[in-house]
């Protein structure tokens, strides 16, 4: 699993302050920590970045490259910021992200070609987020075909099905199952494409201390179905261990749950039982509530 370290994120107060003040300390600490923790890419989520775009991107990219040799993922919806970021990258970067929206196709995809980089393409279109497996596939096939015409090969495309918060009443659990299905069949419909997800969105809105187990369990499930990469927190040691296959008994339990096998919770230690309960919720086998581990 390719892990794109998510921790340099403009929503974080310390990151946004550091950007404004051009203070390298925080940024470089986050870059170093993620590099040492085993991330494969460093994501630079700068938001829309309307002011001092060129200058700030140049500063940020160089600031990170001073302390880390990892390739960067430039994460913004603003094509000007995107280009400003891409052009200073020393290693082949990841354009994060384009979509099937008209503006994105016209402004982002050509940048991927121009800078010969990998590109995340989400299933989003001008009509919104396709909710079902079929509509997601339909939408992504169209956008990938468009990208191919621009000269971007499938191998450079990282498809993002867009993960939604599990806690969204009624819809969240269904969406979790849909993304799992989508990832499972993606290679059949678009051979050679890669895939990625914004993992932590699955636990958005969930009490803070309960977020990691949802993220970890879901990543194990997505990985089983063939997910190539995830934007995630590399500082989560257990998440990284799971991805290295170091907790095979946990992985096995999650797989069993995915397959609908009965797992007897009473025989399991608390931690293992929590993984099974979480997998049940993510498979929509049981209704989600914030108290899902307490049942």
């Amino acid at each position, binding site marked *: 699993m390719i892990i794109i370290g998510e921790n340099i994120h403009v929503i974080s107060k310390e990151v946004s302050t550091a950007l404004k003040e051009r203070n390298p300390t925080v940024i470089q600490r986050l870059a170093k920590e993620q590099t040492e923790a085993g991330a494969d890419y460093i994501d630079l989520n700068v938001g829309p970045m309307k002011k001092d775009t060129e200058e700030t991107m140049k500063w940020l990219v160089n600031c990170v490259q001073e302390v880390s040799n990892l390739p960067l993922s430039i994460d913004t919806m603003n094509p000007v910021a995107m280009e400003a970021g891409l052009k200073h990258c020393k290693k082949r970067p990841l354009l994060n992200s384009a979509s099937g929206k008209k503006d994105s196709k016209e402004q982002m995809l050509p940048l991927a070609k121009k800078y010969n980089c990998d590109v995340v393409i989400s299933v989003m279109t001008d009509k919104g987020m396709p909710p079902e497996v079929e509509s997601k596939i339909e939408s992504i096939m169209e956008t990938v075909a468009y990208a191919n015409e621009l000269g971007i090969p499938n191998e450079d495309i990282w498809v993002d099905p867009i993960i939604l918060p599990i806690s969204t009443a009624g819809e969240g659990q269904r969406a979790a199952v849909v993304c799992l299905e989508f990832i499972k069949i993606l290679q059949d419909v678009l051979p050679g494409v890669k895939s990625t997800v914004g993992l932590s969105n699955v636990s958005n809105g969930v009490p803070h201390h309960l977020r990691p187990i949802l993220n970890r369990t879901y990543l194990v499930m997505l990985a089983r179905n063939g997910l190539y990469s995830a934007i995630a927190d590399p500082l989560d040691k257990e998440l990284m261990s799971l991805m290295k296959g170091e907790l095979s008994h946990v992985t096995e339990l999650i797989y069993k749950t995915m397959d609908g096998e009965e797992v007897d919770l009473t025989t399991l230690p608390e931690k293992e039982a929590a993984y099974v309960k979480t997998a049940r919720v993510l498979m929509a086998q049981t*209704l*989600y509530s914030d108290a899902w581990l307490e049942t």
Partner: protein
Amino acid sequence: MEYKAPIEAYKGVVREITIGRGEKTLKIGGENILPFHYFDEGTMPNPPRFALEVMDMEPGEKIPHLLEPFGDTITDPIKWAKKCETFGVDAICLTLLSTDPAEKDSSPEEAAQLVKKMLTELKKPLIVYGSGDEKKDAEVLPRVAEVCTGENLLIGPVQKENYEIVGKAILDHGHIAIAQSPLDINLLKELNVKLCKFLPPERVVIDPLSSPLGYGIEYSFSLMERVKQIGVITKDNMTMMPIIANLGSECYKTKQAKENETQGLLWEAITATTLCLAGANLLVLRHPETLKLVKKTLLGGNEKWQS
């Protein structure tokens, strides 16, 4: 080829709960099919039941066509309740409106004594709703539970802010809890999970909030429908409880119901019928004519239910 209708059999059973004691009891729930799915395998042993609501104080807003059937009894909650009994109710729902700090802020003791007195005078089982002020309810409802020990009252609303103290009193004094959460299936389950850590699920009825026609009934409908689906189809322990739809007063907050009698009746009746179809087991109404109309609509054709 002859068409054969598919027949579903479900795993879950909505818990059958008995309210009240002795002669004055009422059973709700117990179905192992989706609402009114008689064509499937299973039964709905108890029809939807109906209560009329009385307040422990004269209503501030006087809607003439709503209050007319009760005459001057509305100044005395016990007389008002007895009047309700003449309209063929299955239960009486007493709302302790006067305890609301925004109303009279009357004391827990006063409220509890009224409930106790009403119990001795009524022939039908009693549902007791606090004012909904979660802090005041945390004082009022435990006192009611204590003064009426062993009466097996249906008491609520138990909310996430006060479930520990109110739920404990309900457990200790032998009553049933109305677990109320704001129109969200996940929050509803969470409250039930937390409550059922100490209160047996056989002592919980769900109140998912009932929005009237034109004011969000779709949300209440989907939610009740989903509670039943998840309970009956997937056998989720935390949603296999009967549902109470406390809709009467909500309906009479609408401009349309206040406007005139016919509109009021239809507003309440359509809301009630709709929520029955979604899965409500016990419905709290305001107007006796609505009660007649809804009973006739829903239960009229079912011989077993005509009593």
